[in-house]
Structures are given as structure tokens and as C-alpha cells.
């Protein structure tokens, strides 16, 4: 390891080393600093968020307490005024009420009505009720009426203690307006009376109030404000079956969430704070509750946030820290580059000039002699060398001119031959290809070729011309052109080779011949047709079996007139690959005259993977290792073709919950089209929904560019749906699963989705690759 570092480091320039050292030091220092800042700031940010939320909820509580005090003050004032008038003085009673109600109107109280109830001599139904009529024009009038159905209107009436104290009802729904209200009241005596004579009351409309405050509270999207009465009853709740029906304690027991009960207990005890709740239906997920009591009435406010959303600023902060680190490093890179350039600049100039001399460009001179003495010595030495070299070169030039003439013709031939070989690999999702060609001499007799016959048919060819050198290369040029041209006729491969054979045979006085193998792959179906003319059988890896293809040998091209060839066929599965090669591979000899052979080729081929260039490299290195420096006597040509399979079933759509139905419809149609059983379709739709909804809910920070790509594919037994998203790394299959053995009444509500996916699919896989979540579900086609 140490040696490796040393040799690697030694390879690079002084400037590079200088830059690297400075940059590494600065980077490490800054990284350390960033980590410290980040670690220190995180709790501070968290604290600040908590503080804002806590302050908000306490502010609501304080506002509400203020309201309560106002209401109580009005009630006490009215009660005191009533105790100053005599029992039958209706006229003054009206004046007192009028002034009380005016106070209400001029205060911040939002109210639905105030009234005074006079206790009847015998029974309730005959009691007098002075209620306030709220006219639209802002004027106030009164009417005296009998309430026949008193208890029905005021469910708490019986529980009012018959003593001169303020009493607050539990929140209830006003029977006429349907709004949530609460009533503050106080029994009173008229002037000179011993018994209590009636109640003075003020009703506050709560629904209007918490509707207003809810809008104001949402400094995050999911923030919801809940009001709890002194018994812990939910005054409001998004679920109408909870609001005014259940207390926080009851919900805590029902949902098996002891944390909720603790919030209730704290509020009852007049304590504020925050609590984490594993599941809250308010946000449909984990939540954080910030709560504060309303002390003078014993009620409380809870501000509820989705936990995920609350942590968002912390995640953003980490991003900012990371980005600034990157920017800083970039800046340092520029600075160190400048410093490095300055300090070793002269050396670099010298290097540049010396390199030019090395390449034969002697035009440059040392116009500005470097100043520092070491560099000065170096410069002088190089200048001396220059004159020596020039002298030598002139002598050599004369002799070389003759030799060059011969070689350059061969070189031209090599170029022509090389340009006849296809080098540009086509870009396709359906397959990948790589080739290699190593001539033993300057020109070769081996060749490969690949080309599209039409949009979906791709041809691959490997061939070996008898003999070597110029004659072989000329014959090769003829063969490669013929094969390509006749293939375009789209006739069967047997026909193609028969035609090629015929044309190579004609005028073949030198008795040359070509062995060749050609395959045409249908990229839609994976069907490969092939034909062989005396060539070695290619290797195939199909369904993980690696072997030599069973081919009919046939005769080589150009040997017999009217020779016939047989076309054969094989199915390629996605992932299958073919290795075409010439005998330069199998017949490579080492110094002990042993041949590389089929066995070794098959063995190394079994290590092949899905990257063709890799596979060729693998074989080439193995051959070189085997011959160990023995010069190659024959050309080597190889072609590796990997079939990925055609992927028609790919769509990309926004990762949004609203899109879930559209996606499932598409998926269902696709499965029905592919002949899946009804049960298999149902199971996959159920499971795919869960994964899609999961990605839509959790994968992305921002929903703006949130996309998900869905790929479907199938093999003989299974149908697969692959989900690819660029959101944060997350494997939903790892989520906690509910305990099924628990009685339904004790069951928690979360975790059902993952359970469904695991039970309904026949295979699941997840990987994090190229910053993408890749999750694949599979079901058996027939169920």
C-alpha cells in the first residue's frame, strides 16, 4: 500500500503535489470546521424551531385567556348591576343588559348572544328568558321569551352550581347555528332577595375563532391548531367524529398512544411543553405536539406538525453547509493553482521546451534565461542537448527516407483496412457491443463487423481469411464488403452466405478462403438467426448457462462453387451474451508450444458480466498471461454482444398522490394485455399502489420536479414492475410490520401497506444505485 502511494505520488508533477498538499490541508481543516459548526448548529436550529412553535401556541393560549377574562368581567359587572335592581323592575333590567351587550360589541369578543334567565317560581318551562337580538344594522334589542325546551338547548344547565360563582360550560354545538360555542354564566340575586333569582350568561362562538387562528398558524404546511376543553375534549379536530365527541384521554386509550394521554395530563395540570406522537390522524403520520394551557379556564391549545416537515429546515441547513464547503474548495483550487503556477512556473516553461525538443520541434529557444541557479544549469544542459540531437537527426534522416517509403505504403494499407472495420458502437437500450482487433503484422486477415439490417435487426459478423499480410487483407476487404451488401437484401442468412461464397469463389485463383460466422438478432424478440462457414463456434451465456453454441460447421467461403449453408436459430434472454472470436485466441501458443485452447476460453468466459468491453479485456488479459511474452503469430479479433432485451413498458410520471389512479389504470391495462391472471393483476395493483403512494409521500423534499419512472417487464413465469425515483435514499420494504397476532381491537393503524406488498408479491428487491431508489416487485403470471 505504502509503495503504491509512493509510486502514484511520484508520477505526478511538483505543481500537482504542491496543489494537492495545500488543498488537502485546507479541505480537511474546513471540513472539520464545517462538521463542528453543523453539529453545534443542529440542536440550535431544532431549538429555534421548537421555540417558534412553542411561542406560537403559547401566544394563542394567552390571546384566548385574555378573551376569557374579558367575558368573565362582563358577566361579573352585569351580575353586580342586577343585584342593584329590584325583582320587578323590567325597565332597568333592559338598561343593564343593553349596556352589558354594548360592552361585548365594543370588545374583541366574537359572540353569538348573551342572555339573562330568570328562575321561575315552580318549574323551568315557565322561566323568563331575556335574550339579545343581534340586528344586522348593529342596533341591539331584546325580547322576552319562554323557552319550552330549555334542557335541550343547554345540555349543561342542570350542572350549574347554584351559587354566586362564575361557571364555564363544556363546549357544545349551538342548536340553531350548528357552530361550536361555550357559555360563561353566573347565578345572581335581585336587590334584597335571599334566594338565587336567575342566571346571567354570555355565549362565545368558538368555531369562528379557531377557524381564524388556524389560517394564521400555518407557518409550516401541515401545522394544525387543536383546542381542548378542561376535560380534554377536542373542541375541533379534522375528523368530525372526534370533534366534541372524544377527549384526548379517550383517543389515547383507543389508539394505544400513551403519549397523547400525557399531553392531556400536562394540560390539565397547567403545564406546557412538546411531545412526539408516533401516529396522529391529524397529519396521517408521526407528529410533534406543542401544547400550552389556557390557565384561567383550564383549557389548552395543541399545535400539531408532521414530524417530517419540522425537520425540513435542518436538512436544508445541511445542504447549505455542504454547498458552501464545495464552493470553498473550488475557490481554494483556483488559488492553489495560481500559487503553484507562480512557484514552479519557470520549471514548467523548461519542461515544455524540453518536451518539444523530444517531439522534434527545435524552433524554441531560451529567450528569457531563468534566474535561479539550479534551473539555469538545467536550461544550459538542455540547450547543449538540442544541438547534439539536431546533428544526429540530420544524419539519420537520409538513411530513413528509403525505409520509410516501403513502410508507408503498408501503413496506408493498414489505414484502409482499419477504416473498413466499424468502430462506432450504436447506442441502444436493447443491447451493447464491444470489439477488439489485434493484427499480428501491420495488416490483418481477421475481421469483425456489425450493422443494422433494419430498425430492429442487428447483425454481427466475425471472420478469418486464410493467410496473412497484404494478400489476406485484400481478400478480407472483398469479403467484408460482400457480406454487408448482400445482407441488406434481407434474405435468409443461408442465401446471404451462398451469394457471398459464389462471388468469392469466382476469380479466386490464389485459392484463398474465409471462415465466417454471422448472426442477426431480432431486438424485439431476442430471436437470433445465425449461419456458419467453417468458423469456430461462438460462446453463449444464456439463462446463466455458458457454453459453445452448437453450430453446423459448413464449408468455408470461397472454396467450392455452389456450396450451401444452413441457417439456424437460438433465443436470447435479456442478459444473454455472445462472444465471437477468431482462432488467434484459441491457438495462441506459449513458449512450451502449448495452445490456449477451448477449455481456458470457456473458463474465463464464465467470469464474464454484462459489460462487453470488460469481457473482451478479461479474455485478452488471460491470453496474454498464458503466452507470457511469446510473440503472437496470428491476428486476434473478438466481438462481444450483450442483449439487454427490449423494454417497451417504460413510463415516467409525476410522483404525486393525485396520479395514483392514472398510474394504476395504466399498469392494469398493461398486465391484462400481457395475459396475467385476474388474481395476479389484482395483487400487483394493490402492491404497486403502496409503493407509488410511498414515493409520492416521502421520497421528495419538494413536489415540483418529483418524478417516478416505472418499467414493466416479464419472463416466462413472472411479471415485474420496477420503480425508479431520484428522491432521498429510502427502502419502504424495511418498514416495521404490524403484529398480526394481536387482536384487532388492540391493533395499531400503521404498517399495513408494507405487509400487503410482502404478502401479495412473489418477489421484491431494492437497491440504491446511481443516486436512485430502484425497487422492483414481481408476481407470477398465473395464479
Amino acid at each position, binding site marked *: 500500500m505504502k509503495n503504491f502511494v509512493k509510486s502514484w505520488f511520484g508520477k505526478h508533477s511538483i505543481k500537482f503535489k504542491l496543489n494537492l498538499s495545500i488543498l488537502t490541508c485546507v479541505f480537511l481543516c474546513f471540513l472539520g470546521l464545517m462538521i463542528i459548526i453543523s453539529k453545534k448548529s443542529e440542536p440550535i436550529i431544532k431549538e429555534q424551531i421548537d421555540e417558534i412553535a412553542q411561542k406560537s401556541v403559547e401566544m394563542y393560549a394567552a390571546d384566548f385567556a385574555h378573551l376569557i377574562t374579558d367575558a368573565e368581567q362582563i358577566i361579573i359587572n352585569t351580575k353586580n348591576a342586577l343585584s342593584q335592581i329590584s325583582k320587578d323592575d323590567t325597565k332597568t333590567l333592559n338598561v343593564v343588559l343593553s349596556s352589558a351587550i354594548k360592552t361585548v360589541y365594543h370588545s374583541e369578543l366574537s359572540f353569538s348572544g348573551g342572555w339573562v334567565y330568570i328562575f321561575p317560581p315552580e318549574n323551568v318551562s315557565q322561566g323568563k328568558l331575556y335574550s339579545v337580538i343581534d340586528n344586522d344594522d348593529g342596533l341591539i334589542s331584546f325580547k322576552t321569551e319562554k323557552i319550552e325546551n330549555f334542557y335541550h338547548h343547554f345540555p349543561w344547565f342542570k350542572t350549574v352550581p347554584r351559587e354566586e360563582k362564575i361557571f364555564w360550560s363544556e363546549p357544545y354545538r349551538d342548536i340553531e347555528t350548528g357552530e361550536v360555542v361555550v357559555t360563561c354564566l353566573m347565578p345572581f340575586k335581585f336587590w334584597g332577595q335571599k334566594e338565587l333569582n336567575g342566571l346571567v350568561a354570555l355565549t362565545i362562538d368558538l368555531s369562528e375563532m379557531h377557524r381564524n387562528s388556524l389560517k394564521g398558524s400555518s407557518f409550516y404546511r401541515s401545522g394544525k391548531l387543536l383546542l381542548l376543553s378542561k376535560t380534554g375534549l377536542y373542541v375541533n379536530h379534522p*375528523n*368530525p*367524529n*372526534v370533534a366534541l*365527541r*372524544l377527549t384526548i384521554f*379517550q383517543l389515547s386509550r*383507543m*389508539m394505544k398512544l400513551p403519549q397523547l394521554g400525557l399531553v392531556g395530563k400536562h394540560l390539565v395540570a397547567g403545564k406546557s411543553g412538546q411531545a412526539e406522537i408516533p401516529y396522529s*390522524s391529524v397529519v*396521517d403520520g408521526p407528529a410533534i405536539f406543542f401544547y400550552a394551557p389556557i390557565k384561567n379556564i383550564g383549557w389548552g391549545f395543541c399545535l400539531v406538525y408532521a414530524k417530517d416537515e419540522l425537520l425540513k429546515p435542518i436538512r436544508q441547513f445541511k445542504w447549505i453547509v455542504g454547498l458552501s464547503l464545495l464552493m470553498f474548495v473550488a475557490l481554494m483550487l483556483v488559488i492553489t493553482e495560481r500559487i503553484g503556477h507562480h512557484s514552479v512556473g519557470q520549471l514548467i516553461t523548461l519542461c515544455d521546451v524540453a518536451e518539444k525538443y523530444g517531439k522534434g520541434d527545435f524552433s524554441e529557444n531560451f529567450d528569457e534565461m531563468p534566474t535561479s541557479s539550479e534551473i539555469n544549469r538545467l536550461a544550459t544542459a538542455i540547450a547543449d542537448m538540442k544541438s547534439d540531437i539536431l546533428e544526429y537527426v540530420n544524419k539519420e534522416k537520409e538513411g530513413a527516407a528509403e525505409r520509410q517509403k516501403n513502410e508507408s505504403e503498408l501503413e496506408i494499407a493498414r489505414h484502409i483496412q482499419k477504416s473498413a472495420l466499424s468502430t462506432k458502437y450504436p447506442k441502444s437500450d436493447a443491447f451493447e457491443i464491444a470489439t477488439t482487433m489485434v493484427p499480428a503484422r501491420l495488416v490483418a486477415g481477421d475481421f469483425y463487423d456489425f450493422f443494422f439490417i433494419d430498425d430492429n435487426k442487428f447483425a454481427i459478423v466475425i471472420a478469418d481469411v486464410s493467410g496473412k499480410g497484404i494478400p489476406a487483407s485484400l481478400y478480407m476487404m472483398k469479403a467484408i464488403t460482400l457480406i454487408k451488401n448482400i445482407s441488406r437484401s434481407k434474405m435468409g442468412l443461408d442465401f446471404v452466405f451462398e451469394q457471398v461464397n459464389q462471388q468469392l469463389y469466382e476469380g479466386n485463383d490464389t485459392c484463398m478462403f474465409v471462415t465466417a460466422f454471422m448472426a442477426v438478432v431480432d431486438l424485439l424478440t431476442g430471436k437470433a438467426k445465425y449461419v456458419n462457414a467453417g468458423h469456430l463456434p461462438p460462446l453463449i451465456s444464456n439463462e446463466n448457462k455458458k457454453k459453445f453454441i452448437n453450430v453446423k460447421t459448413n464449408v468455408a467461403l470461397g472454396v467450392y462453387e455452389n456450396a450451401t449453408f444452413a441457417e439456424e436459430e437460438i433465443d436470447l434472454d435479456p442478459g444473454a451474451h455472445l462472444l465471437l472470436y477468431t482462432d488467434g485466441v484459441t491457438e495462441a501458443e506459449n513458449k512450451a508450444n502449448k495452445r490456449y485452447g477451448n477449455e481456458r476460453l470457456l473458463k474465463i468466459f464464465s467470469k464474464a458480466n454484462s459489460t462487453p468491453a470488460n469481457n473482451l479485456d478479461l479474455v485478452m488479459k488471460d491470453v496474454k498471461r498464458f503466452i507470457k511474452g511469446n510473440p503472437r503469430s496470428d491476428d486476434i479479433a473478438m466481438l462481444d454482444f450483450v442483449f439487454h432485451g427490449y423494454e417497451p413498458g417504460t413510463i415516467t410520471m409525476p410522483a404525486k*398522490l*393525485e396520479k*395514483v*389512479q*392514472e398510474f*394504476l*389504470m395504466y399498469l392494469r391495462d398493461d398486465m391484462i394485455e400481457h395475459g396475467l391472471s*385476474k*388474481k395476479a393483476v*389484482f395483487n400487483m*395493483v*394493490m402492491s404497486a*399502489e*403502496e409503493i407509488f*403512494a410511498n414515493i409520492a409521500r416521502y421520497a421528495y423534499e419538494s413536489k415540483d420536479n418529483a418524478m417516478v419512472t416505472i418499467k414493466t417487464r416479464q419472463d416466462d413465469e413472472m411479471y415485474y414492475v420496477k420503480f425508479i425515483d431520484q428522491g432521498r435514499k429510502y427502502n419502504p420494504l424495511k418498514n416495521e410490520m*404490524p403484529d*398480526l397476532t394481536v387482536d*384487532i*381491537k388492540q*391493533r395499531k*393503524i*400503521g404498517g*399495513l*401497506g408494507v*405487509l*400487503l406488498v410482502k*404478502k*401479495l408479491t412473489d418477489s421484491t428487491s431494492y437497491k440504491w444505485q446511481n443516486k436512485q431508489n430502484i425497487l422492483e416487485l414481481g408476481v407470477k403470471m398465473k395464479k
Partner: protein
Amino acid sequence: MAEMNKQLRIEQKREGDKLSCKLTGWMDPNTSPDLLNKIDLSGIKSLVLDMGGVEYVFSAGLRSILMLQKLLEFQGGSIKLINLSDDVRSIFECTGLDSLLEPKA
């Protein structure tokens, strides 16, 4: 694309403390909250959900049903699901929620 956006239709019929709801459509994350918001459980002791028209019940739907069950249980009531397709029934069975269903005929 006429089939797009299947809503969840809820037809409610109340008789005393018995409420029966006929559901039609999909119970997915977009439609399932309606189950909690549109069904009023006050004073209900017995809730029957007729699932005959429900093609899919996804996990969001299961959660809503479980929530209804817990709310009802609290007020001393109970929930029954009837007319489930075999597919939907299998979902309740494999999540262990089949005690909400009437025994298979």
C-alpha cells in the same frame, strides 16, 4: 380515459341507531378520507359497509376502516363489512382484519 379518477361514492341509509353505507369506487389515499369525513357516527351502534361496488381497498382505505372501527367501538358500537369481492376479501384476510367481515357464506 373516461374511467379516470374513480371517486368513492357513499350512499347512506340510517334507521335508528343502525347505519348502512353502500360504497362504490376505489378506496385509495385520495378518496379514503371521505369515509371519515362524510359518515356521521353520532348515536350509531351498528355500521354496515356494503363493499359490493368497491374494486380496490388500498392501505389508506384499510386505515380509514380501522379508524371507523375504533371510533364505533368507543361508543359501544360495531362495524360489519359485507358483499366483498373475493379479491378484496383476500386483502382483509392477509392483513388479519377479517374479523370485521361477516363469515363467508
